């Protein structure tokens, strides 16, 4: 979904999110948070990747061109863009691939060496591969083996063969996937940031509902995250 803003876009960091009101659904009450997938400053638009899963996302995915939506953005903190030229691995799974496009573009523009590893259940679940390919070397895994290497992202040969060559790993996807990626990063002493997705009521740090356990206690995913360095999280379990 492409959203054109009434106001001139602020500078948006990869990993930041937008909180969208689902106006036409009877059964939803709160806004729905989405990673910002891509930004076109010339057209003053942001792109959102929506998969219709629950009532809110289904309703939003049926929006028609020209409709008005209430969107609060950009919210939260993005991924850390390295200062020194670096080799960076982006790992996305399922809907978690959304923030990685803008991230890949940003890293690519700053001349970092970008590898993008996307995981999906099956070939049909993979979207916009051409777009990702523009900003880095693309690697794919599917659980059923219908495209790329068969298995989960951590089964990809990059993990066994050349993980040590990376300076940073940035990941977003289902929590078990991120935990598996984070464990590999920690084992190999590679800087790793993950983008978390907890249920939120407000999205700007006042309801205190979306907390995650960190080394500094419970912290809001919306304002302290959604991107966290794994060193700050209590993920050892």
């Amino acid at each position, binding site marked *: 979904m492409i959203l054109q803003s009434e106001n001139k876009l602020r500078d948006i960091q990869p990993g930041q999110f937008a909180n969208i*009101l689902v106006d036409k659904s009877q*059964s*939803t*009450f*709160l*806004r729905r948070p989405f990673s910002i997938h891509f930004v076109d400053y010339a057209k003053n638009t942001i792109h959102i990747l929506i998969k219709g899963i629950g009532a809110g996302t289904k309703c939003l995915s049926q929006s028609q061109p020209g409709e008005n939506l*209430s969107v*609060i953005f950009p919210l939260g903190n993005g991924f850390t863009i390295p200062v020194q030229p670096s080799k960076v691995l982006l790992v996305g799974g399922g809907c978690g691939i959304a923030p990685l496009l803008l991230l890949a573009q940003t890293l690519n523009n700053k001349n970092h060496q970008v590898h993008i590893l996307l995981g999906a259940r099956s070939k049909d679940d993979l979207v916009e591969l051409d777009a990702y390919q523009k900003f880095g070397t693309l690697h794919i895994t599917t659980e059923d083996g219908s495209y790329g290497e068969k298995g989960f992202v951590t089964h990809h040969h990059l993990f066994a063969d050349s993980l040590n060559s990376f300076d940073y790993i940035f990941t977003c996807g289902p929590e078990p996937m991120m935990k598996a990626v984070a464990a590999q990063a920690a084992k190999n002493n590679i800087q790793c940031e993950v983008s978390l997705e*907890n*249920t*939120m*009521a*407000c*999205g*700007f*740090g*006042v*309801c*205190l*509902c*979306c*907390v*995650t*356990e960190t080394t500094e*206690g*419970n912290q809001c995913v919306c304002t302290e995250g959604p991107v966290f360095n794994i060193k700050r999280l209590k993920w050892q379990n």
Partner: protein
Amino acid sequence: MAELNISIDRLMLKNPVLTASGTFGYGVEFDDFFDVNRLGGFIVKGTTFHPRQGNPYPRMAETPSGMLNAVGLQNGGVDYFVKNIYPKLTGYQTNVLVNVSGSTVEDYIACAERINELEHISGIELNISCPNVKEGGMAFGTSCPSAEAVVRAVRKVYHRTMIVKLSPNVTDIAEIARAVENAGADSVSLINTLLGMAINAETRKPVLSTVTGGLSGPAVKPIALRMVWQVYQAVKVPIIGLGGIMNATDAIEFMLAGASAIQVGTANFIDPLTTINIIDGMNDYLERHKIASAKELIGQLQM
């Protein structure tokens, strides 16, 4: 322009619109959205004597026309508030109030004593109605003797305006309101959240880590309105009404039922500009009905 100013005890509000504790952070979070000084005042989140980590995640469940929360009064404690938050609040040109909670009467007293020293805090809202903490909170607000005891104790050490926030999880809220009025409350605010529960049928597990939580949002508005109306007939102190207020019409309904002022809570999460829209909408209503002052709405339900 109609006159919107209202007084609650010694508090002069430029309009009847306040924000509910726990839905407005420390106010500063809203500076990006609008000029917070336009509010009648804001009530910062529940502060306890000792720091509290709050309850584990998940703390929230969306429900039909509302939400359940089980935050559990996460806050840095009163010393943290005084040292790190209070300095950010002294520049506001509106009333800033602190919601005070505790597990024991001694905690309430110690917390209120510290807040009493703060010149720019115009009042406290004594929270005897939090459903999400194991000890204290709601336990104080569900019986007349315990409500009276904690209010009387805090009254001795707190010398500015003291509002007492009432729990709806009682058989007779008017009785509790009378008890806290007798104990020295300057005002009562109602209602806090209603105890509720959500279950995930697929996993057969409760949605909230604490199993039960507090229900808020438009789903509770009719109950809140009924309770404000009942309490209006039972006490003389001014009432602050809250519970599911989303727009100016809702706010006016609460005033007609007997509220002198209102608080906006859950609506802040969905539209951070709700309070400003309510202030403007209230003015429009008064002009349209040729009513000079918002004060003339209080308790003016036509039977």
